[in-house]
Each structure stands twice: as C-alpha cells, then as structure tokens.
C-alpha cells in the first residue's frame, strides 16, 4: 500500500489541476461579444511594420498569437478605451484614418505607447520595449492582444466619448523629457503612468499623478502638466 503513495500524489495533483481548469472555464465569460462575425481570421500572417528596434539583445518579439476576428465594417475615425480581460490594465486605441495610436497602462510600470497603420479594420502597432498590439476594430468595439513590458493582455473594449478616452502630456523637467498618459474610462475612473525619460530607447514608468479631466492638468514634481486629448475623431494628438 505504501508503494502507491507517489501515484496518489500525482493523481491528487492531477485532480486539483482538472478542478481548477474547469472552475476557470466556468468563470470565463464568453469571448464572442455581439457584433462579431463568426469567421475567425487569424492574423498570424499579418506582415507587421517593425519599428526601429531599440538597442537590446532580446530578439524582436513575435506577435502574441492574436485571436483577432474581422468586423463587418470599420469606421474611419474612432476612440476606444476600456479594461483588459482580468482588469489588470486599461487600453485605449484611437483611429484617425489610416493612423492609429494606442496606449496600454496598468497605472504603474507596465505601459506602452504604440503606433501603427490601420487598414481594413485591422492594425498592428508597435512601441518601445518590444511592445506590440494587434487588433481588429469595428463600429463600437475593438478586440485584440497587446504585449507590453513582457506582459500579455487580451481585450475587447468599446468606443468612448469625451471626456473618456486617452490623454497625454509631455514636459521637460530638469533636462529630461517626461511623458504621461492617462486612460479615462466612462465610469470616471482613470489609470495613468509617467515615463520619466520618454526619449530613452527603453523608458521605464511610474504611476502618474491624478489628471484633473475638467482642466486637463496634473502636477508632477511641482511642475504643471498640460494634457491633450488623443482623439481619432478630432485628430488632436496625431
């Protein structure tokens, strides 16, 4: 009987794994929001425009195997913002014609500004620190995946209207260019991060000071930052 105890250990672990897996599956909301077309179009073949790689020994990141679905129609201009799955960060994407700007941020060290060229309702964006974002967007919603600071997020977020959306502020403080970004959600909550040396090839970030959305200002280290809205509708920030 004693000889079987290692097997019991294995089976206990396997059973625990199966239980957790089933519980995870039950707690996961359906990934098919309304407005989806059912045909899954893998964008693995998407030839991404690669940014000038920042000096680093890490090989260029591969796309995070997006499960992007094509939308029936893509708006020419749109602003999207919301929380990623799991709520660990927020993402904001602004489309202005063929230009796309995105910001993903957890209110602390994980954040990235990304840019890309939009076409046919899809866009692959890249940013510093090997950040990469792949989305499909339609009227009302955008879905996709983003990797920033080696952290992967999936998301499906909706269009937002002012004062919700993406804000950025840059300033030179004691010789260093700082750049702050805020994502303001429809419920009024915001997350923001601040790069203390934004011109660096691999900027690092800290939590941003609170943005006063009414005045568009925030105070960092005694300096007043003036934020502008990054809006695909008005083209500001592009």
């Amino acid at each position, binding site marked *: 009987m004693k*000889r079987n105890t290692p097997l019991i250990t294995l089976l206990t672990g396997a059973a*625990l794994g199966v239980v957790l897996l089933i519980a995870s599956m039950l*707690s996961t909301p359906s990934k098919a929001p309304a407005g989806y077309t059912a045909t899954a179009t893998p964008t693995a073949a998407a030839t991404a425009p690669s940014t000038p790689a920042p000096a680093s020994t890490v090989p260029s990141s591969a796309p995070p195997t997006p499960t992007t679905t094509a939308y029936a129609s893509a708006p020419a201009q749109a602003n999207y913002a919301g929380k990623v799955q799991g709520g660990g960060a927020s993402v904001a994407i602004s489309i202005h014609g063929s230009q796309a700007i995105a910001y993903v941020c957890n209110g602390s060290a994980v954040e990235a500004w990304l840019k890309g060229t939009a076409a046919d309702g899809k866009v692959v964006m890249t940013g510093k620190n*090997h950040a990469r974002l792949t989305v499909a967007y339609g009227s009302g919603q955008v879905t996709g995946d983003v*990797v920033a600071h080696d952290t*992967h997020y999936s998301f499906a977020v909706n269009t937002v209207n002012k004062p919700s959306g993406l804000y950025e502020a840059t300033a030179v403080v004691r010789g260093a260019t700082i750049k702050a970004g805020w994502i303001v959600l429809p419920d009024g909550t915001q997350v923001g991060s601040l790069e203390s040396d934004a011109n660096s090839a691999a900027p690092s970030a800290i939590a941003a000071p609170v943005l006063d959305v009414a005045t568009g200002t925030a105070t960092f280290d005694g300096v007043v930052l003036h934020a502008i809205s990054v809006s695909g509708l008005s083209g500001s920030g592009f």
Partner: protein
Amino acid sequence: MTAQPGMSASLPPDRAASGAAKLVVPCLIGALVALTLGIYGRLHSPTGIAINIAGFSSPGSVKSWLATGATVLALVQVASALVMYGKVPRVSAPSWIGGLHRWSGRLAFLLAVPVAIHCLYALGFQHYSTRVLIHSVFGCLFFGAFTVKMLILPKRGLPGWVLPVVGALVFTALVVIWFTSAYWFFSTFGIKR
C-alpha cells in the same frame, strides 16, 4: 495527467526487466505529460484571465508567491535528500527526515499546480521573449520530470544514481521556472502581495 492510472496498470510485466529498462515506461509517460501540457498551452487560445485569489493584488503576485513557496519547499527537498543519503557530514538522518521529504514534496507539487493551470489557461505557451520561451519550455518539462520521479519511486532494483538524478532534474526545472517568473515579477514590480 489523468492518463496515468491506466498506464501504470501495465507496468508489472516489466518487473523482470533490468533496472535501467524499468525507466523506459515512466520516462515515456513523463514525456507524454510534458508534451500534452505544451500542446494544450499552444493550441488553447489564452483567455488572459482565470480565478484570482482574494488578498492579493493580481494573479501575477498570487502565482509569484505560490511559486516562491514551492521553490523554498524544493530547497527543503534537496536538504532532506542530502541528509537521507548521508551526504551531510556529522549529521545522521533522523527518523522523521523521510516524512519531511515526502510531505514537503507533496506540498510543493500542490502549490505548483494552481500556478501551472493559470499559466496554461490564461497565458498559454508563449515565445515572445527569451525569458517567456524558457519559462514555457521548463514549465512543461517540470511536470514531465515530476511524473517520472513519482512513477519510479516505488520501483525496486533501480541503479542507485537514478533517483538523485531525476530529483535533481525536477529541482533544476523548478528553479529555472522560478527565476523566469517570480524572480522576474518581484524584480520588475517590487516585492508585493
């Protein structure tokens, strides 16, 4: 992993085989476990979310603390194994050392399982950076190696080097996993709950 009861039932005919030959079936099963985890992680579309545990700031910190717990217990494993094998000068193995070794191992394994499930279900097998690739590969190898260790433990007549070598493989894999995940997490985001 659920395939083991059926597989192990076919083991007894091997009993007459030489010591090393007894390793073949456990190793094949272990390889199957590692492959299954890797293939599932690659094919399953990562959800980005899984069950969170109250009291922690994020799934990342939950996993980092569980993994750290498992790694500390793995150090207990190495220490107790050295004592059992009489490799520590002037320390004779106390009667409870076997129990300590077994229970710390079981606990370490049970701590590692929820972490692995979150990895597999929410994140999947990824390769977008060297750290992530190494972590994905060793995560699969760890559970394969652990399966081998558990399956060969009850076997008699194995060469004496087998258990220490397999145990060392399990330990090494866990330490690699820890360095490429929890250590990275704590050094990137700070040591937080």
